């Protein structure tokens, strides 16, 4: 089944704190030195990282 939502990431807002990585159930988020890689194939768009992100750098949008 195709996902209805997708996670988008705003690098300008991110502080690279890694909170999102800690709650990701599918290991879809990879925090690098000053960027973040989102493995869209692994992401289930569950939205847990969106709730956690202190700077609201992650959002759930219609695919």
């Amino acid at each position, binding site marked *: 089944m195709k996902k209805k939502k997708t996670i988008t990431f705003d690098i300008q807002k991110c*502080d690279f*704190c*890694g*909170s999102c*990585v*800690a*709650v*990701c*159930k599918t*290991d879809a988020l*990879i*925090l*690098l*030195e000053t960027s973040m890689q989102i493995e869209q194939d692994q992401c289930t768009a569950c939205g*847990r990282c969106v*709730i*956690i992100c*202190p*700077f*609201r750098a992650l959002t759930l949008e219609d695919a």
Partner: protein
Amino acid sequence: MKLPLEQFYDAIVVGAGPAGAIAAKTFAENGFSTLLLEKDREIGLPVRCGELVGKRGLTLAINPDPSWITHTVNGVTFVSPKGVRVNVPCPEPAYMLNRPVMEKSIVQMAAKYNADIRVGTVAVGLLRKKDAICGVKVLHHDMAIDVGCRIVIAADGIESRMAKLAGLNSTITDLNDIGICAQYRVTNVESPEGFPELHFGKNIVPDCYAWMFPKGDGTANLGLGITAKAAGKESPVQILNRFMTLRFPKAKPLALTVGSVPLGLYLKKLVAGGFMVVGDAARMANCLDGGGITFAMNSAKLAASIACEALSEGDVSEKRLSVFEKRWKNGVGKQQERSYLLKRAVLKVNDSTIEAAAEVLINKDPSKLKYIDLLKLTVKNQPALILEAIKLFK
């Protein structure tokens, strides 16, 4: 030209926070070739921490250099929702740390014993041979390099992926088991007592607590933590701005950081073949206050000491390393389990109970007040938890 990374090490430590620094120092001073990897470009920064630590826990891990400590703390001020201030002497002295100085200093000790150190270097994968981990895949600048080793210690913090990659389930599944924090480093704050302050009340912070920790140099760490439930409604930064305006209207921010702390139980499995996980990465912390420095440092010291023995014996199997798991479970791990029970109770306490407790405590002799008195009053409708509280604070 041969890069320093293209080597084989006895031990690779991922993350140069307080845990990783202690682990690297332990390996290096025992004569094992060591590589310490740090994702950030400078060790000790950014400071995603209130920097308050118990003296006993810290000195158990390492003999602290005076330069790491901004001042010694002998009491704490609890501030009720209506602003009633209750001063409680600390059960043991605590220190306000300068974490960047401390972490650089411990890493320097590791370097003195020839540990290799790489900053701005991200561990992105683990190398595996049969049942054991045998190296780390790293990104440095624009180079991807495989570095082999006999044992990996994952001290990669709350954002840890190393444990997941080693096959240990480290995802924080219950969103109540993570505290989302925001903190300003501020100037222009004054408190009558000069103690670290803990502020409670739904008007201040929806759950958990807010803090103001004076650093002794005219600055302070002003921050708060909330659960995911609260964060779904409002971001911690918005709540922090309100707290600062309400309680510290003259404060001027010098820095803003965010981050999260584990508030659940530590991982059931802490080891795999050739692999150990410590500190925040292993979800080790005091769930009641979110403090993780001493858990991180002591877990790292214990893990690295056991790893040194294992390396000397030539056996880094999961079975051999599981000594760490057992010893942690029977030691500091018990403290975390108790703090977890208490946290669940304290989160249920409402503002009127806190206010009533403050009114009772303010009339008592401050020099005779103890933390346990506060807990007794706030969890008084849950008697079984008072026993747990006594065990935690004895």
